[in-house]
């Protein structure tokens, strides 16, 4: 089997790591996206402005990468009801579990936090099983 290293994925991942490291080194904050949004819904003093700035940067980033030929994929073929149910579960689960792929998967795992390692294994396993069930049901 032929295998080539997905350089774009590796480089993009390194940017994620760099971003998380900068945010923590300079302002002590955790670049977890679910935590950033959840924190804005439950605002605390002096914790909202950096969160708003961070999300603004994320939304605007498409402007930076478009000239280099990276575009957002077309996602219009997704079922909107399925996507909405998934959104409810993702929102509820990330707040209950205190993090998502970024907060637990990058920052928590990078700090060797036991909680984050367990959480990452749990959500990866759950997602893999759901995809397997979808494959068996023939809806993949």
């Amino acid at each position, binding site marked *: 089997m032929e295998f080539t290293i*997905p350089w774009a*994925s*590796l480089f*993009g*991942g*390194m*940017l*994620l*790591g760099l971003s*998380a490291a*900068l*945010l923590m080194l300079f*302002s*002590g*904050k955790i670049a*977890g*996206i679910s935590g950033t*949004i*959840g924190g804005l*819904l*439950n605002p605390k003093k*002096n914790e909202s*402005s950096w969160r708003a700035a961070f999300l*603004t*940067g*994320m*939304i605007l*980033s*498409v402007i*930076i990468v478009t000239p280099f030929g990276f575009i957002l*994929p*077309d*996602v*219009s073929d997704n079922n*909107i009801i399925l996507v909405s*149910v998934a*959104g*409810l*579960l*993702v*929102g509820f*689960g990330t707040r*209950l579990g205190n993090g*998502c*792929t*970024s907060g637990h998967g*990058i920052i928590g*795992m*990078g*700090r060797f936090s*036991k*909680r984050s390692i*367990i959480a990452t294994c749990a959500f*990866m396993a759950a*997602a*893999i099983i*759901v*995809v397997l069930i979808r*494959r068996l049901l023939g809806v*993949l």
Partner: protein
Amino acid sequence: MSQNTIRENKESQITMFKSRMTKSKVIGIFIGLISGLLFGSGMIISGMVNPDKVIAFLDITGNWDPSLAFVMGGALAVFSPIYHFFIKKRKHAISGDKFSWTSNTTIDGTLISGAVIFGIGWGLAGFCPGPVVTSLGGGSNIILAFILSMIVGMVHANQYLAGRFPLPIVGYRKNVCAVEST
């Protein structure tokens, strides 16, 4: 109102503004914006914004696409050394703020069930919070639907954690403690 009082008013407003914009806040906003731009760029370049790619990564029994493992590997390869060699040795961040990671180390049912519920949602559609926020600029109503329902789900979770909202079967949360946001 005389010219003088207007000027005094303006000056007092400026000093008020200056005292509110502390050094840590300015750094927070500036670095927040820079990190957000880097994070979003990383999401797009790595292909995390493509739900088909995410599902192909999770589909280990099918036509498995391992490329997203390189996203996490690349992120950890950069973040982890910087954390262990530079950040961990500091008492506080460059802005003077405390590091905001949680001191909580207990692995409990709330953490596991939350992670499992998130995983189910992730496997259903292939979207997680980072990529959808990055994709907002794409103008898709699928993304909008996901973000709005995600916010509703977060509000429910916050209410449940605060002991104000009962879940089916589980009921109200029993040992309510302060909700910590990470």
